[in-house]
């Protein structure tokens, strides 16, 4: 049976179709979830796509956090369901306190769209287990408020526990410690600013590295053994 990945649409979500395409291309079944849904339609994992939910009023993700579906997602995440937040989805996860830290205005104060070279720092998350730790990937990064910040203690803790998942090789926004993506303690909830779902076809993306993110969660869901680079 193919895995079912729920893709949430908030008013103002933009990359929901793109996320569905990525999920489909990687061999899973995308399932639409609506911000007002109280239940998760039996999905196996959740993808919070990019966009400008609620117009990014106040702070990105600040309002989406209060939607019904986020209550359901928080509970499911607690029970171990894999949840991925990309760009605005990452912001929603931080605002919801499912991930530590916050995303603030880029240090250079502009929206910037560039392919970002990233290092996959760990394969011990539900969304990266198909990568080699240390592997380099290229995803488009495009945002105005993607500078990752947290207090030093939190950052140290993230480093120590291996929860920095993606790191920029050319920091595009001033993120602290070049952090592009982080995970929760259990490794099932991951957020990152750059867009794996826009790196799934050679025709339209800078790479096809994004397919590995969905492939990872499929491997995770099917319980397929240890992370690939576990012997590192």
């Amino acid at each position, binding site marked *: 049976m193919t895995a079912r990945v729920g893709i949430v649409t908030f008013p103002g979500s933009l990359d929901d179709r793109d996320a569905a395409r990525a999920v489909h291309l990687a061999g899973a079944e995308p399932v639409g979830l609506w911000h007002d849904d109280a239940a998760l339609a039996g999905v196996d994992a959740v993808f919070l796509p990019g966009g400008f939910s609620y117009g990014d009023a106040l702070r990105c993700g600040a*309002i989406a956090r209060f939607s019904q579906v986020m209550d359901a997602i928080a509970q499911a995440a607690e029970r171990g369901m894999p949840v991925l937040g990309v760009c605005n989805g990452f912001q929603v996860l931080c605002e919801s306190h499912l991930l*530590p830290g916050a995303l*603030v205005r880029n240090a*250079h104060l502009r929206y910037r769209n560039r392919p970002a070279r990233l290092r996959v720092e760990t394969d011990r998350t539900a969304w990266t287990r198909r990568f080699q730790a240390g592997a380099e990937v290229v995803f488009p990064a495009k945002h105005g408020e993607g500078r990752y910040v947290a207090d030093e203690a939190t950052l140290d803790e993230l480093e120590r526990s291996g929860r920095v998942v993606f790191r920029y090789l050319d920091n595009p926004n*001033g993120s602290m410690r070049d952090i592009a993506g982080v995970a929760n303690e259990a490794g099932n909830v991951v957020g990152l600013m750059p867009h794996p779902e826009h790196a799934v076809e050679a025709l339209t993306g800078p790479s096809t590295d994004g397919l590995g993110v969905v492939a990872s969660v499929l491997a995770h869901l099917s319980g397929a053994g240890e992370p690939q680079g576990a012997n590192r």
Partner: protein
Amino acid sequence: MARVVVDVMLKPEILDPQGEAVLGALPRLNVTEVASVRIGKRVEIEFDENARNVEEQSRVIADQLLANPVIEDFTIYIEPSPIEAP
């Protein structure tokens, strides 16, 4: 009609690039005696005429929505209702 103002500022330890940019631009206006600029948000909330628990509600709004405690602090000012015109 009660009017509440919530000021939301980045915590002092968080870099404020917007404030820095303004500070950097001041010499062009021949302003040279400024030590720092910080830019935050000012939120003006007008409650309905008969709203109850304005203070409590404002606190809820500020705490849960207007400010993100990871990066921001807030202050609430409740403006006294104007005295009814005779």
